Structures are given as C-alpha cells and as structure tokens.
C-alpha cells in the first residue's frame, strides 16, 4: 500500500507538470519558436565563421534541455509563492517522490522539445546518425535531470521571487556557455577547455554529440559514467534540501 502511494505521488507530480505545460500557451509557443531562433543564429548565422549545423545542433538540444529543466526545478519558488507547496509538504508521502515526479516531468518536457528541435535540425539540413537517437535520448534525459536537480536544490534554499533571476543568470547561463555545448574543444584556448572539463554538463553534451554525429568525444561510456554520477549526486542533494523546507 505504501509503495503504491509513493508511486501515485510520483505519477501525479509528473502529471501536474504535463498538464501545466499543455495549458501554458506562452510556454508552448516559446517551446516551438525558440529553437528556430537558435538554429538560425547559432547554426546558420555562424556558418561563415566556421560553425556547422552538426556541431551546433546537439549544443542547442542541450541548451534547451538545461534551460527548460532548470526552470522546472526553480518552479518550487513559484509553488511557494502561490501556496501550493504547502499542499505538497504536508502530504503523507516522502518528499523524494515529489522531487522525482517533478524531475520526470522536466525530463519528459525536455525530450518532447528535443524531438521537435531534432526535427527542425533535420529540416535545416543537419545530417544525424539515426542509430544514435536512442542513446541521444538517454544523454538528453541525464542533462535534463542534472539541470532540474540544480534548479531544485537552489530553489529549496532560496525562497524569494528575485532569486529566480540570480539562479538563472549566475548559475544556469554560465553552465551552458562554459560547457562543450558551443565551445569546440579542439580549437578553444587551454584555460577554456579546462573549464569545460570541470563542467559536468560537458560530459552529457559530449555523449549527446557523439550519439548524433559520431564526433567530439574520446569515450562515450566515460561520458555516461560522469554525467550519471552527477545526476545521482544532484538528485540526492535536491531531495535532502527539499526535505528540509519549512514554510
């Protein structure tokens, strides 16, 4: 019985994310058109300076997953502001189930967006390895899970509305741009390469890029190991912090 309730909690937390996504016209619209913008600027716009679509497409996929999942994590701040968090906090289920459900919702969202972006990418002329789509999904999920964990951890500690911008601008954006998403390790200066190497997202992105294009990494299993480790770590930390929330 108890297990059943925890599963129900995970399911309904996931479902809530999905319902909210389907009802938010603004977010749906943004989800549809933002990737187009990214593909045009990063993919086509930078083509003259050496960028190519196959390199940029995984970067865009990752960037989108990181941003949208971080947002899902940070949404705890919204729930706190609008009171719904109390309903979650006094429920007789573990808070871990609420965290896991929310993460799965974020991952599902990132995957749906990923499919759309991939489709657009192909439409724009990117050549991808179709056999790598399944591992690409795995890496995209891991990237998304890490990002939602970071968002959750921060928003469990920071309670005010303004912190959202701080988390987004000071944590999430640097993590995206100082990763291998848009930095080509083969041509970048050494110090920058070093930074991308300590950024866990880079391993997810390397794996993703390798799955889709067969380039950009030494060992895809190593990438998988590193990003998985960080996902586990971030999930544990975010659950711990979420358990400590008092309102």
């Amino acid at each position, binding site marked *: *019985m*108890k297990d*059943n*309730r925890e599963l*129900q*909690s995970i*399911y*309904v937390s996931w479902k*809530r994310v999905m*319902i*909210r996504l389907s*009802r*938010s016209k603004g977010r749906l619209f943004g989800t549809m058109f933002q990737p187009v913008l990214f593909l045009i600027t990063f993919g086509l716009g930078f083509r003259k300076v050496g960028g190519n679509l196959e390199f940029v497409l995984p970067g865009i996929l990752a960037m989108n997953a990181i941003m949208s999942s971080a947002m899902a994590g940070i949404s705890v701040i919204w729930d706190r502001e*609008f*009171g*719904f*968090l*109390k*309903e*979650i*906090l*006094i*429920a*007789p*289920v573990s808070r871990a189930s609420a965290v896991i459900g929310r993460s799965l919702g974020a991952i599902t969202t990132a995957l749906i967006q990923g499919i759309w972006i991939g489709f657009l990418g192909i439409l724009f002329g990117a050549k991808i390895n179709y056999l790598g789509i399944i591992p690409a999904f795995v890496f995209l999920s891991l990237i998304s899970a890490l990002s939602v964990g970071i968002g959750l951890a921060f928003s469990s500690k920071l309670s005010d509305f303004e912190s959202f911008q701080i988390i987004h601008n000071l944590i999430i954006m640097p993590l995206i741009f100082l990763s291998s998403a848009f930095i080509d390790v083969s041509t970048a200066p050494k110090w920058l390469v070093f930074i991308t190497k300590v950024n866990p997202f880079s391993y997810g992105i390397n794996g993703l890029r390798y799955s889709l294009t067969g380039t950009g990494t030494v060992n895809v299993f190593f990438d998988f190991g590193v990003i998985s480790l960080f996902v586990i770590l971030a999930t544990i930390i975010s659950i711990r912090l979420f358990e400590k929330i*008092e*309102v």
Partner: protein
Amino acid sequence: MTEAPIVFVKNLKKKYKDGTMAVKGISFKIKKGEIFGFLGPNGAGKTTTIKILTTLLKPTEGKAIISGVDVEEQSHKVRQKIGVVFQTPALDSKLTAWENLDFHARLYGIPSTRRDKRIKQVLKLVGLNKISKKLVEKFSGGMKRRLELARGLMHNPEILFLDEPTLGLDVQTRNKIWEYIMKIKKDENMTIFLTTHYMEEAEKVCERIAIIDEGKILKMGTPQELIDASCHGIITVKTKNKIKKSSNILNVKKMNGKTLIKVKDNKKITKVISEIMKKYEVEEISISKPSLEDVFLNLTGKSIRDDKPQKRKLRIGRFR
C-alpha cells in the same frame, strides 16, 4: 475514564531563527467532535501553532500529540490524520477543481476504487460539483476557500485545521463558509481546530475558545464562560430616582443623565432588571451584554482589530 483528547499540547514553544518567540509555552486539549477556536490578533502566534500541529514547523520546546501520535517524532503518521485549510490559498490555479482534488487523493493514498466517488462527494458537500472542470484561477475567493475545505476533508481526517477560514472574504461569503463548516462538522462528525480574529464568528461557532495574545493563552473556556468570568453586563436606565446598590449590583454610575448599572453575575441580569422595574419609575431601559470583544479588551487592554466593531446593544423595551 474520560476519552483521550484528540489534540494534546503541552508547554509548546517556538522560537524563530531571527530570535522572535512566536509561541511562549502554551498548553491545551481538544476533545473529539469539538469545535475549538484560537482567538487573537494578527501576530498572536495562531498560525505558528497551526504550522507546528500540521508538521510544517518543528517546535522549539514542548509536546504536541494528535490522536496519540507525536507531531515532531512521527510527522508522517500525523499527516494522514489531519486535514488543513491554510490562511493563504494552497491550490494550483492552473489545474481544475477536480484535478486539485485528484492530486490530493493520490497523495493521501485513497484507492482508485473510491477516488472518484469521494471527489464527487466532497465537491457536492461544498456546492462545487457543477464547476469541477473549471480552472481554479477562474474561481472567486469564496469558491477557492470552499474547494480547500473539500480537499481538507477528502481523506477523512480525524481533525480539520482551519487557519482563518474566512479571512479576506465579504460578509455574505463568510456566512456561507461557516454554513459549510457547520455542515461538515455535522455530516462527518469532524473535530475542528480553527483560528480567527473575528470575535462574533468565534462566539457563534466555537464550542470552546482559547484567547491568545503575544504567544500565550490568556484564557480558555466556552464563549459564555469567558464572558461571564471577565465581563459584567451593563443595564442602562433612564429614571428620576436614585438607584441604590443591591446584592446583585456591582456598581452604579451616572452618565449623561442616565444610570449605568453593572451587574455582578450575568446570569442574574433579568432578575436585576425586574428588580429595578419594580422599585423605580423607569422611563427607558436597555442592556448591553458583553461580548468576546469586551473579554479581549479586559484581558489585554487593547482591541483585537483596528476598526472597532460596534458594541452589541440589546434593546429590551421602552417604558414611558
């Protein structure tokens, strides 16, 4: 042996991180099936107490036990036994009424065979069954409060906590909410713990009241007990005679050509009136019965609200 209380609180204290002592050692018991009210001004410690009892906050000191389970040690078990309506809404406004309740039902482990039936049942109880598919953001304040009431009872809790259930609602809606609360109490034989700073409402619905101010319980009892213990009814008489003190009269004062008589015992107020009517030639007589507002004023020396409510005046007759 008397039945064990459903809520048992002993010497409960809460000190916030910033040093504020919000609750300074309170003790009380709530019996099964009782409506127990915490009455006090904003910042008295009402919400803090509710948050501790509903496991949202940990107490700094003291014990709180809900139907035999310690709130601090076994918060998980307590959560299943309680229903809560918070002071500020705790609904997801992007979900429909039904979806909000479904979310709750699943978290509280209501089996799928009973889930839909129970949702329908509670929606009907608060009169929202016709608009269950509407988004909550389209609801009025009163409707949201009713939905929260419905959600609070869904899992058949042993006790319902209502933190200022009528705060911010207009008078009509407030009355309606109380109607629903009384109905819930009757239909589900619910024990209810509520906080409010509306004196008249507390007096009307609560079976027992604790007056709380600055983190301490000042007095506890039935509304009538509280009034009788600390306030005296006043009879105002217009007469040419000079009224003398008697055994039932505490004191006599003259004011604006009228005589104010303070009775010793509120229960004997009618006796004093007939006494006066017999003895003196009375032109006009009225009584003002004390209310909880007076009790609060007497206990704390201040009014509970900034906007002072009108004193209730009960006119019983005019004699010429």
